[in-house]
């Protein structure tokens, strides 16, 4: 097995000249734009010498924590009203499991961790070093920048969730930037900044100093969607089997496969040389309410390819993931680690991809949007099983089936347990050039057990339609 550890040096460029067939504009088989290295005008140098700055990265991590604290302090947030007494008390009290809002814990902290991770990552530090900086940044935040005692769940969600999200966004931002070579266009600079603000800021300050060699995947699939949740329903056995209809809501999302399994010359030397990420964000009809959202990131930490690729192949290894699923009646989130395999096979005009992953969730959360007491979710270890299929019909139609089963105990907080099933059926049709449409059906089911309460079950489903921008090679 080829270890993906890169604990010391920033890697060499990932892509050799790939052995894929070329056409005037698109690749063969599934939809593919021609890769940038096929462009004779791509500026491939000069390559900046490898460089990294531990000191600047640490200063930026502290600055990020300080800035987030100052922002909240100026907004009058209670948690930000720190003092020497509160800091001393945080050390005296020690680590707790907090009772903060699910969104703050499940999404806010990983977003914070993404910033600290990428402050280090975009200053030349490697994956594991950047994780360490995010971990330390979270420690500093927990001990010093909140009046509430340091929280164990935050210390898990911030660096682990932040690293999963951060590495994905780092790779995407570099993909956008580096596809323009060493003379990227203004729009590449802009969108690279949007995907990775810390990377953008460091680029503004330091230019190409910490950029190193171009970081481009040998293959990737990208769909960027803008549309609407057309309709949906949620049903619960609580409140007399209530049922509510949802939508239409504005919605946008993305689906990314980086380092497509089965690609010839796919290199798996470093964490996240292969990853899959998807997310959607839907505004509800009431702007005062939380939106519905999903964020699913799964990357290969270490692994190796299977087969030569081309007409068949794949990869297997140890995956790590961060999931955040929040339809309008229940939610589940967690950081996971476990083995998995991803295979592909092509038959002329039809290409089938399948992925199976079993993960342990050392720290997961799940629950309802209806509080039971003061906490509306369980916290505890759990497990996750994932089975996914993706079918490409010519380069026109893509059908995806995604099934996930979560089991979350309440061992860390609240007791009880959660069984949450989540399914998705999506069909994307490319109509012209890179433009197409996607229809998506999301379905979820939750069964929860709480001591002294009858079991709870809930169902939710939404149907969405999107304009879709196809990318990838």
């Amino acid at each position, binding site marked *: 097995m080829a270890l993906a550890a890169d604990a010391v040096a920033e890697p060499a460029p990932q892509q050799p000249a790939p052995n894929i067939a070329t056409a005037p504009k698109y690749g063969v088989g599934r939809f593919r734009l021609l890769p940038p290295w096929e462009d004779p005008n791509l500026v491939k140098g000069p390559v900046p010498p490898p460089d990294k700055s531990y000191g600047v990265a640490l200063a930026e991590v502290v600055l990020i924590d300080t800035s987030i604290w100052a922002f909240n302090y100026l907004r009058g947030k209670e948690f930000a009203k720190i003092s020497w007494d509160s800091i001393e008390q945080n050390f005296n009290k*020690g680590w707790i*499991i907090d009772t903060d809002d699910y969104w703050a814990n499940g999404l806010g902290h990983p977003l914070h961790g993404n910033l600290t991770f990428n402050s280090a990552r975009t200053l030349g530090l490697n994956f594991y070093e950047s994780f360490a900086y995010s971990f330390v940044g979270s420690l500093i935040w927990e001990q010093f920048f909140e009046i*509430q005692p340091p929280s164990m769940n935050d210390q898990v969600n911030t660096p682990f969730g932040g690293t999963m999200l951060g590495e994905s966004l780092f790779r995407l931002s570099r993909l956008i930037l580096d596809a323009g070579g060493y003379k990227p266009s203004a729009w590449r600079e802009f969108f690279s900044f949007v995907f990775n603000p810390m990377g953008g800021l460091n680029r503004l300050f330091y230019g190409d100093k910490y950029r190193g060699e171009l970081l481009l995947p040998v293959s990737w699939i990208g769909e960027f969607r803008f549309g609407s949740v057309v309709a949906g329903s949620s049903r619960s056995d609580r409140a007399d089997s209530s049922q509510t209809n949802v939508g239409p809501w504005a919605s946008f999302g993305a689906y990314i496969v980086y380092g497509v399994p089965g690609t010839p010359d796919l290199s798996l030397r470093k964490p996240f040389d292969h990853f899959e990420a998807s997310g959607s964000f839907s505004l509800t009809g009431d702007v005062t309410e939380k939106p519905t959202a999903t964020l699913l990131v799964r990357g290969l930490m270490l692994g190796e390819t299977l087969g030569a690729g081309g007409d068949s192949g794949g990869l297997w290894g140890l995956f790590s993931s961060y999931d955040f699923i929040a339809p309008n009646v229940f939610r589940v989130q967690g950081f996971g680690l476990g083995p998995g395999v991803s295979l592909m096979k092509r038959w002329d005009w039809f290409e089938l991809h399948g992925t199976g992953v079993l993960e342990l969730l050392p720290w997961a959360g799940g629950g309802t949007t209806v509080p039971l*007491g003061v906490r509306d979710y369980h916290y505890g270890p759990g497990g996750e099983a994932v089975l996914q299929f993706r079918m490409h019909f010519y380069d026109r139609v893509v059908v995806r089936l995604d099934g996930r089963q979560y089991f979350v105990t309440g061992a860390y907080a609240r*007791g009880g347990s959660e069984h949450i099933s989540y399914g998705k059926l999506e069909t994307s049709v490319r109509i012209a050039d890179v433009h197409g449409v996607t229809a998506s059906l999301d379905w979820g089911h939750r069964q929860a057990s709480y001591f002294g309460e009858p079991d709870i079950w809930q169902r939710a489903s939404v149907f969405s339609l999107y304009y879709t921008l196809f990318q990838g090679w």
Partner: protein
Amino acid sequence: MTRNVLPLPILASLAVACAQDLDVHIRGGDRPPDPGYLVMGLAVDGGVTVDRFQVVMRNMRLQSQPVDGGVDTPGGVYVGPGPFLIELSGPQLTGGTFTPLVNDYAVGAKGFYEMDIDLLPVSQGDVVLKPDLQPMLGKSFVIQGTNQQGAQFTFESSIAKVLVRESVFRMGMNHNNIDVNIAPNAWFLHPDGGAPLDPASADPAVRALIEENVAASIDAYEDDDMNGIPDPLG
């Protein structure tokens, strides 16, 4: 910072995270402290002066979720089985001072959402186990003082009640403190705003109202910094 010193903050943080102990203190006085009230010394609202308060508490337990008393939850802990004879007078009762009740109970770093405390009359069995409970035999609490007319009184109660106090008790890995707060300032106020309740009265209805007031005046909440105010949730 080099990679060699990166683990230091982690180790430093973990080094202080080892005790996981819990203290429980009785705090006497209004919550939060009312300076105007404290000026009145021992007098409580309703014109009554309390010289001494004795109460027996037992089965102090934290529940892993709110269950409204009467049933113990999985993961719940008995931090103080007792019975505890609590005697308060002077500033102990009204001045916001702290009286230790439970020291260094070993508790895991997890959250609890309810504290239950039993008020029960002292039985002969209790006295056998704890002879110092003898003066409280058959009684749950005793109040001694001077009523609105300046007459001495001794109010004895044999109330049996489970005090259910929902709150968030987030136990940390180092040191934690819970206040069991007794706020006597409303003991002799009529709940409907009527005439103050006379503790020397033999009227069962008046006595029942005072008993309910006393039970309701006992609260429990997390107060790690022991400032008398429930800790913010952040």
